[in-house]
């Protein structure tokens, strides 16, 4: 839910990174956190297990300070990808202004991608939103690995709305800011 607060001169948008387990959602946020200067990111909240699997969610506020002392904040969340954390995924999707679907490009992950997309659709409906209209960007991650699924095929199977998509190697930061910028364009209505 976008909030414009004229008293504090702040505008806030909520963005959720969704996708199957281990596809690289937390890695996207970590790269953003490590790259932006300290005044542009808040504390990075990671609620995970001992083996770095997201348990509840991650939260990273990105703050863009503007000349007229306005602040525009993008609250980035990741959902836990593992199928059995359905309830956590839903609360993260509550009131989202935009969704980044991170697909895992590895050759054997198509079923997980499709399953995760199906869960996204269902969960959005459950929180009163609609997959058909929610601002959406696709990221095809792990393009560095051997045996990746061709981007065309990922598009054919996953990108039925024909939204903008980006290949990425989130671990090295490739495609991470392109993706963030694209979803920021959508939620702010700039593009």
């Amino acid at each position: 839910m976008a909030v414009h607060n004229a008293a504090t001169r702040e505008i806030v948008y909520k963005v959720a990174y969704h996708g199957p387990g281990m596809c690289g959602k937390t890695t996207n946020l970590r790269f953003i956190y490590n790259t932006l200067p300290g005044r542009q990111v808040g504390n990075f909240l990671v609620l995970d297990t001992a083996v770095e699997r997201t348990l509840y969610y991650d939260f990273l506020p990105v703050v863009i300070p503007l000349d007229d002392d306005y602040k525009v904040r993008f609250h980035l969340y990741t959902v836990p990808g593992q199928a059995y954390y359905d309830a956590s995924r839903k609360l993260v999707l509550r009131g989202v202004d935009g969704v980044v679907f991170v697909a895992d490009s590895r050759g054997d992950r198509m079923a997980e991608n499709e399953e995760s997309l199906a869960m996204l659709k269902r969960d959005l409906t459950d929180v009163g939103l609609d997959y058909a209209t929610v601002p959406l960007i696709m990221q095809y991650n792990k393009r560095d690995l051997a045996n990746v699924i061709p981007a065309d095929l990922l598009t054919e199977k996953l990108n039925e709305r024909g939204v903008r998509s980006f290949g990425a190697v989130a671990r090295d930061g490739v495609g991470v800011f392109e993706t963030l910028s694209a979803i920021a364009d959508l939620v702010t209505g700039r593009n």
Partner: protein
Amino acid sequence: MPAKYVELKTADVELMEAELRTLCARAGAEAVVLVDLSGVILASHRVSDKIDHLLFAALLSSNFAATEELSRRLGVTGFRIMYHEGKRQNLYFDKVADDTILVVLFRDSNALGRVRLFTEKSIAELAKMVTAATRPAAEAPILPQAHAAAAYLAQMATSIQPGKL
């Protein structure tokens, strides 16, 4: 089904803060905060600057939303109130509207009944204010500042080049 857009004018925030101030005094609370369940503070009174407000709002809203989901799955209807008891301080949550909660932080020297009573009194007023400020996202105006921020990120995307694919 679009998401929503909340537009808080300075006067709206002042009205909300006045209501929160009154509640805080009447209930003898330490701090009160009005939080949208998407994780954003709409207004607050006396929340310490030692707390990271952004994190606080994210945790409060997800905490409430998780319990709401739990009660839904258990078939509990009309879930509204949640209470956390600490050693010295307690947290009291009450639902203001579909997507908004009011959270009251109070000391154990204070009676829960008092907090509950005055929270209830404030809720209707706050609900009206929140409803008046809320519109479908499709009706959100163009915000030049938001466009400037998106443009800034687009600039970042071209200047940060960790390597092309």
